[in-house]
């Protein structure tokens, strides 16, 4: 029997031709790799030497070494070559560096800014294949489908140069057909922080949420807007009143991030205190729980805004995330409400709310800590007790407890330590002791323990004795 194939000569011929193709292909790929390497090495060397020749080095540019003659020579170069020479400088140039100004002037003089702006607008001069092959990355100019790469690069360059006058073109690029260009234009607008561009980005965010317009993720839009100074927050007010809860939530979140990033700028909004108070009060009773929660949290970062009534309202909310937001606000701005207002949340059914309440109390200092201890002593539920212990450990209170332990038989710290021992949490105390510097604390504690010798603490006494012996 023979193989069920058309015929042996046919099969052999087919295999032979495939083999020849594959071998040829392999050799072509290998040759391609070598050519790519050679071209790249040559380009790298050439760029390096040209940069030195034209004085396009950070030190050279800062010293203003480029002469009129050099400038004339640079002007004679095609824009694609100039970009290759300047790109490394642009990418490595820190935002606040004086080099940015020098580079901006140079790019303006060389006409590059104009080239980049035209590219973003989609104006590309026709390039023949021959010309394209002669310049690095020339294929990007030749194939219109790849123009988006050049548009995005141009938008990036304008952002890196902080070219303020380009903001309308960049804002226009937020609706570019390619998502990459939209993304880069957004980043550049955030870098420019031009006041008028804020509204354009906000409008784009609105469209992204309400029309599900593709291209930019909500996260990118929020991050870009949050990058603006807090003084722009007034422009968020219409979005905070938007009928769509997602837009409202995003607007409040942006406000929160702005305030968090630049707390020192909060007084710039003081003149609008009433407007923000009113808006935040309205948002804390919003129908959407996410909006309510973030609004409650915003109050912690805007010192002037949000009276205690807003936070109190948040604390009454049936949604746990809102209660948590209000408590987080109190942790940031203690004294907005009395301790007693917070204490009741220590027994909230939601663990995260209890945790926020504990942390809020900690921010009240000794008064708040005393309330925590009192509540811990009252706690009958094991889960709740464990959560208290977790917060004691987290806040580093154990050392404080041990230091004050035994000063008087009925002081709060003594009772809490006894309770900790009775619930079997000695390992935490032990770890705190081991980590405390020196043996002084251990010595004094040991003496106190010997003096009082409370029955429940005996086992732990043994442990401490062993530690002392070490």
């Amino acid at each position, binding site marked *: *029997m023979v193989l069920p194939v058309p015929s042996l000569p046919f099969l052999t011929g087919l295999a032979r031709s495939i083999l020849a193709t594959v071998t040829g292909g392999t050799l072509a790929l*290998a040759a391609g790799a070598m050519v790519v390497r050679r071209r790249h090495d040559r380009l790298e060397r050439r760029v390096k030497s040209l940069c030195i020749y034209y004085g396009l080095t950070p030190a050279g540019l800062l010293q203003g070494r480029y002469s009129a003659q050099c400038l004339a020579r640079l002007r004679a170069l095609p824009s694609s070559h100039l970009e290759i020479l300047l790109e490394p400088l642009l990418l490595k140039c820190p935002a606040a560096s004086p080099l940015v100004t020098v580079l901006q002037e140079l790019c303006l003089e060389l006409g590059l800014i104009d080239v980049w702006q035209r590219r973003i607008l989609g104006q590309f001069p026709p390039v023949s294949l021959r010309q394209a092959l002669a310049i690095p*990355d020339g294929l990007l100019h030749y194939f219109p489908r790849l123009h988006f790469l050049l548009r995005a690069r141009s938008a990036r360059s304008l952002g890196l140069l902080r070219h303020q006058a380009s903001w309308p073109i960049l804002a226009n690029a937020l609706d570019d057909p390619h998502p990459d260009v939209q993304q880069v234009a957004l980043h550049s607008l955030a870098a420019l922080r031009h006041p008028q561009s804020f509204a354009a980005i906000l409008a784009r965010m609105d469209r992204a949420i309400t029309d599900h317009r593709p291209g930019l993720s909500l996260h*990118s839009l929020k*991050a870009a807007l949050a990058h603006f100074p807090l003084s722009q927050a007034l422009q968020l007010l219409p979005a905070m009143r938007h009928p769509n809860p997602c837009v409202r939530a995003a607007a409040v979140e942006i406000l929160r991030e702005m305030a968090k*990033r630049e707390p020192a700028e909060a007084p710039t909004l003081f003149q609008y205190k009433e407007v923000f108070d009113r808006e935040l009060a309205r948002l804390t009773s919003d129908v959407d729980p996410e909006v309510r929660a973030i609004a409650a949290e915003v109050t912690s970062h805007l010192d002037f805004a949000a009276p205690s009534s807003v936070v109190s309202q948040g604390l009454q909310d049936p949604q746990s995330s809102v209660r948590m937001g209000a408590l987080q606000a109190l942790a940031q701005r203690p004294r907005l409400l009395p301790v007693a207002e917070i204490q009741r949340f220590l027994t909230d059914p939601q663990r995260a709310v209890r945790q926020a309440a504990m942390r809020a109390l900690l921010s009240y200092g000794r008064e708040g800590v005393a309330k925590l201890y009192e509540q811990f002593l009252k706690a009958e539920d094991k889960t709740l007790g464990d959560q208290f*212990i*977790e917060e004691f450990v987290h806040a580093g209170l154990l050392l404080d407890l041990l230091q004050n332990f035994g000063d008087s038989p009925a002081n709060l710290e003594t009772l809490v330590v006894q309770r900790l021992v009775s619930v079997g949490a000695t390992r*935490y105390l032990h770890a705190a002791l081991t980590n405390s510097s020196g043996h002084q604390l251990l010595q004094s504690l040991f003496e106190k323990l010997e003096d009082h010798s409370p029955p429940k603490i005996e086992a732990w006494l043994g442990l401490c004795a062993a530690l002392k012996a070490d």
Partner: protein
Amino acid sequence: MDIWGPYLEHALVFFNLLILSYFVIGNGVYTALMVMSLRAIWLHSRRLAYQGLAELRGSSLTPAVTIIIPAWNEERIIVETVRSALGVDYPRLSVIVVDDGSTDSTLKRLATAFKLVPSDQVYRAVLPTSPLRGFYSNSHLPNLLVVHKERGGKPDALNAGINLCRTPYFCCLDADCILEREAILRLMDPILNSLREVIVSGGIVRIINGCTGRNGQIVKLGLPRTSLERFQVVEYLRSFLTGRNGWSLLGGTVIVSGALALFQHKAVIEVGGFSADTVTEDMDLIITLRRWAADKQRHVEFSFTSDPVCWTECPATFSMLNRQRRRWQLGLCQSLRKHRTMLFRPRYGMVGLFSLPFHLYVEALGTIVEFLGYLLVPLSFYGGLISPALLILFTLLGLAYGGFLSVGAILLEEMTYRRYPRTRDLWVLLAYAMLENVGYRQLILFFRVQGILKFLVGSHRWEKVIHEGQSLTDLTPAAADASMGKAA
């Protein structure tokens, strides 16, 4: 014997056709993946010129990330790994090292290097793990936590880390890996800029052997010294740049290397964390997440990008390479068996209809087919079923095609990331790419067959690869200084 003759002939003919189908399907799919990757990676490398990493770094909305490093007897490299993790350029980062009951001085070295003291944390075991023995931290390094626990295996250690993780995303990092400074930012980029929810973001693993580092970072790149390691460099390039990238483009990713991957915390908790059912817990978790997403009708994405890099040490000896490949093959078979109900099911999309069946046919069963092919094709030749010319041509074609795919991966590397700076390195890589199918491929096949045999006998042993080479110890500052001095 005469009675069996025709049956034997039929069986041989059938088998030859099976080999042919395996050859056509395997190479056809890999060629398609290579072509797709070529375009996608070239575009991606051009996009890197305007990637907004600075924006991610500077944004207060960038989510926090925890790097979880499970370690078991990793005294030789653990300090450098943790140093590299702590040195990662990311705005809100914490590192949790889970010492999984090491019997060497892993914990001691960590404690000495980072001046750790015993501390205490309340541990809530959302995912069940073996008991914890203690916590170690340093108040001057608040983002580092070392956990000492009883031995429970790598998935167990990872689950302990997940239990302690308080951030929305976590990154798993093998204890013998060095992260590049921007790796986490690059992994986070597709998560934040995607219009859909991304629950897994994977990166590329490269081989560290032959490189030099300082303070947890690679400072000098080079190729390893031995042929065995160099073949693995080519293999990794092919696997990551063409294979995984191609599957990601098709939406059929089922393998994201556990050595470097960013996971959404809540999604992983929801599927029950890493499972000890297989010895390749990373692959198992990805398929489990795929199943969960399809069952719950969650429109989530699994991202793979080729620019976040982590460097790992590859085995330098045959025995260790054997262990590694045996385990990978065993894990593949176990994962396919565990998730067999997903096979050919349209509800699991590309994964159920194409990716898993391909892995079953080409990567799992194909191993046996190829192995038997080396035995039965010569037999067919002796039996007169294949003409000598066809046999020679077919063999040459097999070898040439393998070379074609490997050389394609080298070209891809050259067109994009160009990590190996010396031209000599490129020549060497090309030579090894062409030679890979003569000897090395057969060796790996032999190891993989052993993995299948282990699967058939029901073995479940996690074989640790002990790195005997010096590549990772070259990363210590003293060794780096010596090496750089020599280079100068």
